[in-house]
């Protein structure tokens, strides 16, 4: 952490901007009283919590990462909607066609926030639920196991997200 001392101001500013943005969205006006109050509160919140809020400053946000982030949102939502219909089908079907099991996958992502995003995406997508993360391996509960080999499951479950997340959190 200390090696990143030069990012300190930037990380503080990131936390400030994010808190202020959330405040603006919540109050929904541009009245100067609201702006002043929001600014003071965001400054306090950012001063207390910038260490936990932001791992890196805005300078790491390149246009390419931003484009990948935008492109990731529809991919994620499509997978989520498919997941919902998948689960709904399994629940409604009289015989419940489930083959549950627990499998392992490996991830190439290094940063904590990247792993968090991957684990959340896996949880919200078809038939998979992240149970534990340790180092670079993840324990996944899969409602319809198609393969037990680590490489195969990694390819089937996480590849489509990792392509994007690798760029976003690199």
């Amino acid at each position, binding site marked *: 952490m200390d090696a990143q001392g030069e990012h300190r101001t930037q990380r503080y500013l990131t936390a400030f901007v994010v808190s202020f943005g959330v405040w603006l969205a919540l109050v929904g006006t541009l009245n100067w009283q609201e702006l002043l109050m929001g600014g003071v509160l965001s400054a306090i919140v950012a001063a207390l919590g910038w260490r936990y809020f932001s791992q890196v400053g805005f300078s790491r946000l390149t246009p390419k990462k931003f484009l990948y982030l935008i492109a990731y949102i529809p991919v994620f939502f499509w997978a989520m909607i498919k997941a919902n219909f998948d*689960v*709904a089908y399994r629940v409604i079907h009289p015989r*419940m066609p489930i083959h549950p099991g*627990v499998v392992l996958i490996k991830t190439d992502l290094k940063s904590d926030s990247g792993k968090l995003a991957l684990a959340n995406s896996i949880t919200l997508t078809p038939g998979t639920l*992240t149970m534990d993360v340790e180092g670079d*391996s993840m324990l996944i509960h899969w*409602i319809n196991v198609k393969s*037990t080999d680590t490489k195969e499951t990694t390819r089937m479950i996480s590849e489509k997200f990792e392509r994007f997340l690798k760029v976003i959190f690199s």
Partner: protein
Amino acid sequence: MYIFGQVLIGIGTAFLFLGGLGIFRLPDVYNRLQAGTKCTTLGAFSTILGVGFIHPNWMLKAIVIAVFILLTNPISAHALARASYKSGVKLWDKSVVDRCKEFEECQEIPKEEEG
């Protein structure tokens, strides 16, 4: 706009109902969590967005709340699954494969054999 909001709320409610049905029907903790997480996330998400469409001046608030749900719901499911796995809740009898043991052993040396 009003009708679109109503439709979104209808879809959300349907998915919340299916999530509840899933919790009722599925056999073990982990499978129930699957139904619980996915259906409640999309259900709550589209219900809240539907409210935002019916009252357009609440839209920004609705989006903030929806994004918070989207970020935190999988984390709570993950915490529940991890807690039940650590405290030794058994998988369903007809589960196909269970690699929990292997996961604990293979922290350092990855194995490639089938579970």
